[in-house]
């Protein structure tokens, strides 16, 4: 195998690689031993701390499942509200009229520059000052509001990039058969752009799911992460075990989404019918998908 960095290896290179492997294994083993020793000396690996998760359904029913439901609920509502809003602002930024373009740009840039956590805190306070919501609903609303404001503006950029990947011939052809601007957008541009945007949208879902944890840590919205404290208190200070279980759930959920996104991206890039342009998922992740998504034009797809 060869890459930009190395050729197929000769005997010397192979020997050297084996040496590196051995060194790496030694270092890794030392680190693993250090971690193991640290955990064992604090009794975090004792079976009694892990037992509740494997022998009974009680922790799952009492703590994890309700938290998981809240995580999914917040993420789901945030997504279905943010998507149309994002589409609206994305299209707004592409408008021919300055009075539509400028405010859309300001709104999108503003909410992308502000941390989600701050948006959530402000939303929570605003709901408690100006509305009569009961505390539980209020927290859910605050988390969703924070997520929507931020993610709608990121999705707006994705939509804009998606529409910009389309060849201008599409608009020209639509004009030639006498379509109005709205019709061109709804019947010609958007349906094609959606395909190019799908992978980026799916990876944005990962960002949304991850950000729900902010609600748990900062507003004490009872989602998955927030279930760690009561759980650890209930089963004998098994903090490490609780965190491991929660992290594994997050990883399983998000990893399947990430894999789905990259599978989708490869597939769309191969597809003969599309233009072969896909709005890349970028180096995104967490509250960090900032900046316009990378538009990858792949000319080799044919």
């Amino acid at each position: 195998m060869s890459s930009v960095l190395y050729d197929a290896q000769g005997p010397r290179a192979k020997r050297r690689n084996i040496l590196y492997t051995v060194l790496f294994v030694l270092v890794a083993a030392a680190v693993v031993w250090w971690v193991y020793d640290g955990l064992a000396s604090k009794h975090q690996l004792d079976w009694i701390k892990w037992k509740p998760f494997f022998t009974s359904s009680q922790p799952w029913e009492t703590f994890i499942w309700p938290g998981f439901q809240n995580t999914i609920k917040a993420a789901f509502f945030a997504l279905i509200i943010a998507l149309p809003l994002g589409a609206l602002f994305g299209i707004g930024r592409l408008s021919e009229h300055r009075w539509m373009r400028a405010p859309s740009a300001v709104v999108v840039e503003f909410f992308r520059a502000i941390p989600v956590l701050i948006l959530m805190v402000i939303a929570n306070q605003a709901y408690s000052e100006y509305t009569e919501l009961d505390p539980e609903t209020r927290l859910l609303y605050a988390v969703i509001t924070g997520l929507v404001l931020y993610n709608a503006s990121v999705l707006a950029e994705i939509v804009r990039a998606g529409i910009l990947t389309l060849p201008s011939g599409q608009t020209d052809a639509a004009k030639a058969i006498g379509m109005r601007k709205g019709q061109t957008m709804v019947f010609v541009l958007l349906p094609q752009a959606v395909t190019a945007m799908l992978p980026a949208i799916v990876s944005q879902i990962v960002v949304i799911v991850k950000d729900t944890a902010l609600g748990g840590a900062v507003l004490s919205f009872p989602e998955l992460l927030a279930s760690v404290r009561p759980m650890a208190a209930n089963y004998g200070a098994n903090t490490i075990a609780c965190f491991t279980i929660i992290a594994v759930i997050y990883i399983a959920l998000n990893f399947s989404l990430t894999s789905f996104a990259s599978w989708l991206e490869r597939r769309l890039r191969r597809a003969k019918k599309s233009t072969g342009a896909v709005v890349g998922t970028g180096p995104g992740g967490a509250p960090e998908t900032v900046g316009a998504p990378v538009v990858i034009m792949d000319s080799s797809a044919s």
Partner: protein
Amino acid sequence: MFDFLDGYDLLGAFWVTVQLTVYSALGSLIWGTLLAGMKVSPVPLMRGFATGYVNVVRNIPLTVIIVFSSLGLYSTLNISLGASEITDVNFRLAVLALSAYTAAFVCEALRSGINTVPVGQAEAARALGLSFTQVLRLIILPQAFRSVVNPLSNVLIALTKNTTVASAIGVMEASYLMKGMIENEAQLILISAVFAFGFIVLTLPTGLILGWVSKKVAVKR
């Protein structure tokens, strides 16, 4: 109009945010570069480790990592990173967590940068007899770094905003102060505006300056 600011150390809080950002940026740049080096190395085990690390860390919420560093590392395992006062402990743990998390994104950005370097460059270097580390250090990485200024600046902006999560473990940075202020003062809109403005002041110039730098240093091919 702005008398509600009296008695609050606004600049001090934003200074903590800046410090968190700078230390974590350095930490994640070093660790991320090492990871990227492993990810493109000819040793399968290192490649596997780097891939595993990126996939795991990228899919865990940063909040979980930061809260774990406090509840798991400090409270349970007594790892305090050599600090004795609780404020120092929290700050250092936050830097550790932010670096560990951001490194995954730095690694991804750098790797995509390495892919933009034409194969001919490395082939020419090898033809001169340079070893793998020499090729990586002298030929590939300098070119790769120049093409990833833009993605890295996005990672840096994201990191700046992510430092707010450190307030979850009691690091007294800007969002921590804001939370306290809007509970005590009846000036929701003004306070929100001040902190929103603060973050825009921090992130906007970063994007503009590094965007300009990225155009300046990009390798024209």
